[in-house]
């Protein structure tokens, strides 16, 4: 037991002391902060509200259409936002006015010019001039407002009373999609999809990242011949287990730091945004139960151990780190196949493809957490999936341990598939 601890401790402490670990651990929270703060900050820089308020509405319709749009954009007659400026011109001088305004647009003195003419009244055609790099939301908001005002005007024209016309035309559609789970939980479908996708990607990245560390570590030990010294002191299965657990510990620590950083950022989001002068957009996060966290943790741990054993097996049969990188392709393909079918699973989380993939041990660590985030998965499927994954993980560990012992001491020639299979069945 003490020898296993010695191997775990070496794997853990040597990695945690490395420059790689310190840099990536710090970089993670910085990246998360950038992802969290970046979009609202960028949005503020190109806020539709601010840009729309500065757009100049050139109204050559000879009606009050321009003013009506300005009032509408400011939030109605009782609105608090600043309305855009309206320049009413005669249709005859519209072209000349537009030309003179183009120059101001080019120097970005004006964020936009919205031109309304007789054509606008006749068939809804209007023109919006924007400088390069303007927010696209400006166009959508102006178009929506124009549509409302035109509809209202037309309703009045055909004899509908003005308040009735406003009642009909000002109707704004807003559909909020909510999925109801069997346990009565409510969740936003879009957020669920994003969270499910993020969790699947996170698991994929964690398995590949730390699995690769196991692969490189084994290949390095074999190439530098240090494996022979260690194997003279500890059995191969102890060395293998210690390596997987030690690197697993590094993963737990690093993922723990990243998760804590993310949680801290999310909890203090309002305060951080306020400090930066940003308005926090409310993102309804899905309710997370302890059972979800435990299940997710189980898939992460089992998935990591399963793939770490496979990566270790590949590392032990290769004669150099470069060869190990090439030889890992079949293992990577097993993982990548889950990611390749992610889109299908996202669209139909309880469909045949997603269900089958969440049962196959090699894709289950990614596919089942994804499904759990998107839909209600029957308990029997979860039990079957975890069971199959656990059994496969134990089988792979045992097989890898046996191959490991023989392959680590074989230099030069890469063993054939037949030889590897024979070692797997060899007695301890």
């Amino acid at each position, binding site marked *: 037991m*003490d020898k296993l601890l010695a*191997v775990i401790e070496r794997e853990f402490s040597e990695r945690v002391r490395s420059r790689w670990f310190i840099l990536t651990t710090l970089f993670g929270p910085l990246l998360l902060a950038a992802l969290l703060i970046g979009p609202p900050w960028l949005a503020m820089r190109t806020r539709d509200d601010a840009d729309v308020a500065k757009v100049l509405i050139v109204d050559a319709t000879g009606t009050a259409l321009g003013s009506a749009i300005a009032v509408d954009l400011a939030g109605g007659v009782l609105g608090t936002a600043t309305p855009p400026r309206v320049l009413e011109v005669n249709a005859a001088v519209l072209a000349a006015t537009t030309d003179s305004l183009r120059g101001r647009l080019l120097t970005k003195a004006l964020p936009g010019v919205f031109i309304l003419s007789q054509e606008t009244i006749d068939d809804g055609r209007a023109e919006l001039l924007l400088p390069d790099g303007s927010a696209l939301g400006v166009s959508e908001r102006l178009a929506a407002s124009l549509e409302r005002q035109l509809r209202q005007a037309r309703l009045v024209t055909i004899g509908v009373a003005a308040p009735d016309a406003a009642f009909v035309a000002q109707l704004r559609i807003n559909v909020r999609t909510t999925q109801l789970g069997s346990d009565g939980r409510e969740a936003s479908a879009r957020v669920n999809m994003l969270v499910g996708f993020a969790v699947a990607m996170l698991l994929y990245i964690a398995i590949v990242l730390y699995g690769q560390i196991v692969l490189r570590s084994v290949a390095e030990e074999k*190439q530098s011949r240090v494996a*022979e*010294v260690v194997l003279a002191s500890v059995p191969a299965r102890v060395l293998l287990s210690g390596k997987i657990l030690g690197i697993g510990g590094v993963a737990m620590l690093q993922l723990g730091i990243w998760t804590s950083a993310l949680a801290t950022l999310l909890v203090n989001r309002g305060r951080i945004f306020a400090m930066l002068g940003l308005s926090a957009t409310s993102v309804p996060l899905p309710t997370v139960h302890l059972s979800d966290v435990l299940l997710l943790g189980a898939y992460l741990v089992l998935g990591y151990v399963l793939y770490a054993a496979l990566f270790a097996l590949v590392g032990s049969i290769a004669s150099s780190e470069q060869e190990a990188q090439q030889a890992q392709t079949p293992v990577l393909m097993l993982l990548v196949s889950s990611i390749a079918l992610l889109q299908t699973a996202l669209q139909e989380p309880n469909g045949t493809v997603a269900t089958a993939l969440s049962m196959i041990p090699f894709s289950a660590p990614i596919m089942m957490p994804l499904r759990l985030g998107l839909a209600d998965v029957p308990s029997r499927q979860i039990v079957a999936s975890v069971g199959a994954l656990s059994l496969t993980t134990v089988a792979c560990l045992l097989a890898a341990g046996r191959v490991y012992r023989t392959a680590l*001491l074989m230099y030069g020639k890469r063993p054939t598939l037949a*030889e590897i299979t024979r070692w797997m069945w060899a007695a301890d």
Partner: protein
Amino acid sequence: MSRTITPEHASAVRLSAVSKRYANHVAVDRVSLDIRPGIIFGLLGPNGAGKTSTIRLMLNLMLPDEGRIEILGKPSSDPALVNRLGYLPEERGLYRKMEVRRVLRFLARLKGITTREADRRIDHWLERFTLTGAGRDWGTAKIEELSRGMQQKVQFIGTVLHDPELIVLDEPFSGLDPVNAQALKDTVLDLRRQGRTIVFSTHLMDVAERMCDAVAIVNRGRIVLNGEMRDVKAEHQGAARVAVTFDSGSGEQAQTILADRTLVAEIDHQGNHLEITLAEGATSQGLLERLVASQVSIARFDRLEPSLHQIFLQRVGASGVEAGMSGHG
């Protein structure tokens, strides 16, 4: 630093008809060996003879296809044995990015030594191999910062840090400069004085000849010769031979003695230096006494013994000598 031990078992290593086959060839072919405790034992043979495979079998790094292996009186698969064995593999390697002390502490822990005890021993050995002291403490350097010779010393320290009873060294002197090789030889002799058993493989016959108490020569997976060094030499002695060098001009006085056919069978003259094959029943002591009595001035008188290299050639023939085999070193 090391305690002196008294062996409790008749054999340090006992191999009984052990075989190991690979896909295309037999690496170890019904090998039987008995190495008594407290000696330096040389496992000799050309590259690819099966020395490393035999060593790996002894250390339970590989399992034999046939035969039985006992180490320090226990089956080689006994897990308790690993802490009593020290092993320096032929292909050296350590964790390149780790500090010397941390590597040694790790290797000691794998052999059941506590960190505190390991630290005490590490200090002793680093000092003994001049890796600490005036100038610089290499104990805090990373392995990759060390020269090849220093790395070999660190690896040797890792082999003996836990004070093993049986020390197995696979080609320990290869790649070492003369100063480091001598330091290593002195340490090995010291370890024998303390009662340790040392088994080392080498293809350098003269190193083995100077250091080993007993040897086995392996060729193509088989033991072709095995025994105590003096017995092996006596067995291959044939007719007794001596080398005599007379001081200039005094050779003439010895002519009558050398012409005595009851004493001398054959003489190879090389000026004042003669290589003499004694007659049957004659002894080198008898010849020396006759020469001294005749007041001949003798510069050198040596009993000639066959070298291990010659014995190997005699037993296996020149065909057994492959690339990498050397009588010098």
